[in-house]
């Protein structure tokens, strides 16, 4: 098993466009809480409604990097140092060596390639630094753009829940996609 290649940068948390960095309370307050509450962002997620700003801060303070079963990163643009989104690795299973990934990008930064790059960085980190065997995620049938990004990075469709998720008065499918280490597409 040889290492997954990475850009010239020396940090395992840097890609071509983004760096994954630790969250801090100030960034949660000024960026995460408002950007996450954008209704367009939430349509692609499985949360039912906007969250109070204090909820994001309480969530962050309850986590603070202390838990071994999850990690949450700020996605930062390398060129401008601006925060552009958040990416998480959760439900880390020590026995099964797998984990669920979740991410969102602030609406003003959609279509700029950040999600693709952030996913590549996190998957490489999960496989080569955390020693995981597999990563997986869920995507709504109403979000084909996200599914396209996941496919491009190497996620494969594994399960489609006939049980459907309510979005805008319609029920849409929920897909589970998975990626094994040698499937990551750089």
């Amino acid at each position, binding site marked *: 098993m040889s290492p997954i290649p990475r850009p010239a940068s020396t940090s395992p948390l840097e890609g071509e466009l983004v760096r994954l960095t630790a969250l801090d309370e100030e960034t949660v307050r000024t960026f995460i809480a408002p950007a996450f509450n954008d209704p367009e962002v939430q349509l692609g997620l499985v949360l039912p409604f906007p969250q109070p700003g204090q909820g994001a801060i309480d969530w962050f303070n309850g986590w603070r990097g202390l838990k071994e079963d999850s990690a949450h990163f700020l996605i930062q643009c390398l060129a401008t140092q601006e925060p552009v989104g958040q990416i998480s690795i959760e439900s880390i299973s020590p026995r*099964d060596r*797998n984990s669920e990934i979740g991410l969102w990008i602030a609406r003003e930064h959609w279509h700029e390639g950040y999600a693709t790059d952030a996913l590549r960085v996190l998957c490489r980190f999960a496989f080569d630094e955390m020693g995981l*065997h*597999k990563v997986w995620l869920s995507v709504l049938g109403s979000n084909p753009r996200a599914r396209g990004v996941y496919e491009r990075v190497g996620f*494969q469709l594994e399960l489609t829940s006939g*049980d459907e998720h309510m979005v805008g008065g319609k029920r849409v499918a*929920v897909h589970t996609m*998975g990626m*094994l280490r040698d499937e990551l597409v750089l």
Partner: protein
Amino acid sequence: MDSPLDGELVRLRAADEGTIRALTVLSNDPELIPLALAGIFPAAEAARVAWWRGMVEAGATFFIIERIADARPLGLANLRDFDTRRDNAGLGIWIGKPFWDQGFGKDAVRTLCRYAFDDMHVRSIYLDVRADNSRAIAAYRAVGFSEEGLLREHTFADGAYRDMLGMAITRPELQGA
């Protein structure tokens, strides 16, 4: 039928600390654990109680599976991750090894699904099962579950990564209830 929680062979009862403790010996069976209890290892009664309490705090509903004939507890089932927007819930179940292949699991799953649909107003129920656990898969199929997909190399047990089969059921698909 007297109670919506009575099947033909088994009755579902609310789990309490005493019954969780009483099931510890059955749940610690080394053959059962890799098949049905993902991520759960042989554990002391206190650890089983702590796990159960954590699941209940996260919103899970637990049922002891009891043999009607002699009120003996045979196993444990739960419904968890109730999701309003998806209108579904996840099902987990295990039956102690001495009671395999006698129809108890099938009866318990059927009874639990009927209760979830008719009394808890859940629209669909899903579960994961090791793809090589043909005994369990046959029971789920007989109850009316169908396959939704295969999670590749999704669990590690008995020395290798194993595929997990995802299955689900809705009320019209439930057989014999």
